[in-house]
């Protein structure tokens, strides 16, 4: 099952500069499995997306334009042809 994943500038060091890569959700059909598949081909990227058991607070992942936090987070379901976008939060402030 092939899924296109859009990679933000800051993480392209892991993808040889590629803006988008194909990943496989390994039959499990979840975001978590997809990230494991990404990690297999692009070692180090998983740690930039996941902190312990959860998605990192300042990383946004979208499946077909839906923020995964609203559709099950790492357990969000994926199907063939879905489009995944990773975007770091634009955030900061004086505190």
């Amino acid at each position: 099952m092939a899924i296109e994943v859009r990679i933000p500038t800051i993480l392209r060091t892991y993808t040889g500069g590629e803006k988008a890569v194909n990943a496989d959700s390994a039959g499990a059909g979840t975001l978590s499995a997809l990230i494991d598949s990404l990690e297999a081909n692009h070692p180090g990227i998983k740690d930039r997306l996941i902190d312990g058991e959860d998605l990192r607070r300042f990383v946004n992942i979208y499946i077909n334009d839906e923020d995964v936090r609203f559709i099950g987070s790492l357990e969000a379901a994926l199907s063939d042809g879905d489009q995944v976008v990773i975007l770091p939060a634009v955030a900061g402030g004086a505190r």
Partner: protein
Amino acid sequence: MPAEPARRPTLDRVLRIDQATYDAIVEHARRDHPVEACGMVAGPLGSDRPVRLIEMVNAAGSPTFYEYDSTDLLRLYRELDDRDEEPVVIYHSHTATEAYPSVTDINLASEPGAHYVLVSTQEHGNNAGPVEFRSYRIIDGVVTEEEVTIAAAVDTNDAAEEHS
């Protein structure tokens, strides 16, 4: 506090911005004070020219923190993609402290190609008066202040606009 040498503007990087965009960023910061204002100035890919100001909503609505709403963020990046643009300036205000990146700003900076502009409204708040307007590169946790050059207008009409 960062060491003093890191705070000195370097000459190798300069932010060139037109007066109208500069004024609009300052006006946004004043209007939203005491909440932090945030936004972006996009420009054609590879041009380093900030030409299209996009005010963003601070989803945190806080005087000490800002964050683009995640849906707005996706919409914005799609739009940049469609228009062959990139973030040239990423700005926000500090409303009770100086216009220098905080530890949070440094840790969360994720656009190594962008100029991070900070405006401080601590002196005059919502009112007219001078504001601190400073620009930085933030790459891998290293902050480098850069000079800000304000022009009457930036050339928005050269070949870079035709990028396909």
